[in-house]
């Protein structure tokens, strides 16, 4: 059990807007050392909010209402700022979607990586500079000595994302959370970045939480997958199992869309529920072709075991 590096229990995140939006509605999962876990789901289902909550970094008006997040055994929810700071970038690091805006435009990239080392007490300036060059080389940046002195705008999108990844692995964290790290990049660069993430994990036994709405991408990099819908996990299991035999109608719909071979990005008919309202029954009911009377009354619970899913219909069958 002490192999678990991330443990999320019944996490609830709400935005105090008008009306309040309950974006994450009781999410629980675990991630083990070196494991690669994918989070998939339609836009707005709470993937990014969950990711930020893992760092205890939900910006106002958002707040973690209840639940628990333990990173490397340390509780994040309600932790004092000093403790959070120690975890962030050291035990758990984040790679954001858009490397263009996520790096500071007025500082050299090497300096930004060096700062992440410095504020976690890594070495002295000279050894840090050497470490930065080594990190840049490790993420496949050619001529790293020179590139360390570049400003973000002097690098291509793919290079910038490599810099973000170098920053993420700088302190050899237990977990790297990558929130759609390739969405802003073109397809060939995307493939290179995915390969890079793959190699880094193999080598360092760092766990990766990989967020994407692209199931094909997830199928290439993950061992296990969590399917999010309306702020909840509706299905979870080993990638091969879930992809071969999806149990939740929503997962099935996502998969058939992703692998239908159609180029145009179509979507599942209907829209996800309004997250500012309480949900009485199954959140997927209005869009589900298996919907039964019970589905509107009682929310289906996520079962136990390796392959979990929240659906009345499947449970009965």
């Amino acid at each position, binding site marked *: 059990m002490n192999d678990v590096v991330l443990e999320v229990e019944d996490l609830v995140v709400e935005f105090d807007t008008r009306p309040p939006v309950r974006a994450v509605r009781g999410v629980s999962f675990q991630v083990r050392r070196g494991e690669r876990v994918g989070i998939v789901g339609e836009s707005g289902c709470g993937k990014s909010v969950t990711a*930020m909550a893992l*760092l205890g*970094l939900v*910006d106002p008006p958002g707040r973690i209402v209840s639940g628990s997040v333990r990173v490397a055994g340390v509780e994040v929810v309600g932790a004092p*700022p000093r403790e*959070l*700071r*120690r*975890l*962030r*970038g*050291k035990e758990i*690091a*984040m790679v*954001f979607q*858009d490397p263009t*805006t*996520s*790096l*500071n*435009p*007025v*500082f050299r990239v090497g300096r930004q990586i060096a*700062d*992440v080392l410095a*504020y*976690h007490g890594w070495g002295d300036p000279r050894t840090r500079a050497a470490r930065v060059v080594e990190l840049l080389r490790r993420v496949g940046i050619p001529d790293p000595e020179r590139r360390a002195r570049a*400003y973000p*705008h*002097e690098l291509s999108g793919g290079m910038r994302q490599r810099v*973000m990844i170098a*920053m993420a692995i700088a302190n050899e964290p237990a977990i790297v959370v990558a929130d759609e790290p390739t969405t802003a990049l073109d397809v060939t660069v995307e493939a290179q970045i995915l390969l890079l993430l793959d190699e880094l994990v193999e080598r360092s036994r760092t766990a990766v939480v990989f967020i994407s709405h692209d199931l094909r991408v997830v199928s290439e990099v993950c061992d296990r997958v969590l399917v999010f819908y309306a702020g909840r996990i509706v299905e979870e299991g080993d990638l091969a199992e879930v992809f071969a035999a999806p149990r939740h109608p929503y997962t099935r719909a996502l998969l058939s869309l992703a692998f239908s071979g159609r180029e145009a990005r179509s979507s599942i008919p209907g829209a996800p529920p309004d997250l500012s309202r309480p949900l009485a029954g199954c959140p997927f009911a209005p869009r589900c072709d298996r919907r039964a009377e019970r589905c509107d009354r009682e929310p289906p619970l996520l079962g136990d075991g390796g392959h979990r899913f929240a659906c009345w219909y499947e449970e009965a069958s």
Partner: protein
Amino acid sequence: MRRLLRRRLLLLPVTLLGVTLVTFLAIHLIPGDPAEVLAGGPLATPEAVEAMRTRLGLDRPLPVQYLSYLGRLLRGDLGVSLFTGRSVASEIGERFPASLELAAAALLLGLPVGTALGALAATRRDRLPDHLARVISLVGLSLPSFWLALLLVWLFAVKLGRLPFGGQLPPFTEVPRRTGLVVVDTLLAGDPGLTLEALRHLVLPAVTLAFVPIALTSRYTRAALAEELASPHVRTARAFGLPERVVVWRYAARNAMLPLVTLLGILLPALLGGAVLIEVVFSWPGLGTYLLLAIQSRDYAVVQAVTLLLAVLYVLASLLVDLSYGLLDPRVRERG
């Protein structure tokens, strides 16, 4: 960066030429006739006015007048005051240091206070510092400066009797003029007691004048810093566990400083020329009182010269702003 520098410097003479054209034309467009004023006012005979017009060269075609104006400017000749008969350049030289001293004091006071206030407001939004900043900037921007001046005089000079007001030094004291900056001159004269007096005389006008930079910088800082603090790269810095003080003061402040530099370029010339009423209230012997007197007495040469000076200062300040932008922002430096 070098290209940026070269382009800006090449553009400078063109801009300056434009400025001279505007001040030249402005004096011809505003109502009133300098020849008439100088010939003795409304009671002067038409012949006398005409004679004066010829003497001043005002009967020549405008382009010719402009060229001779330019020629005089190039020789450093700003004309002669219609009233004192002295060279405007030397009169400006006498009065400029007093204005500079006042403006510098207001900036030295206003910038740090304004930035700190704005930064506090941005990091503690809708809390006490934020409200305080809002009130101060409201006062600074909406209350007429002479009103504020009178208020401060009443409070500190009359009611509390703690500070002097009027002039730069106590009555009947003088200091050998070296730089023209009284605070510096008293120091050079080796009279620290008098320096203290000069500083005490400086406090009220400087504080009054400082309300404008405080108001503007605190607003700018608050807006710019709040925007930076909500930006993705600041989110990154936080997500990587950088201490909040580093996030705010290094990662966000550097970017937020850029608009502040522009503001500085606007402020300095504005403070030099915009202290007219404050200078009058405090009997401050600077450009402001000089300009006001000149306007009242239709002393065209003086009005023209002071306006030109302020405009040139403005142009030079913007040049400095552009260059410092290049130093602060690598993206601008690149584009050159």
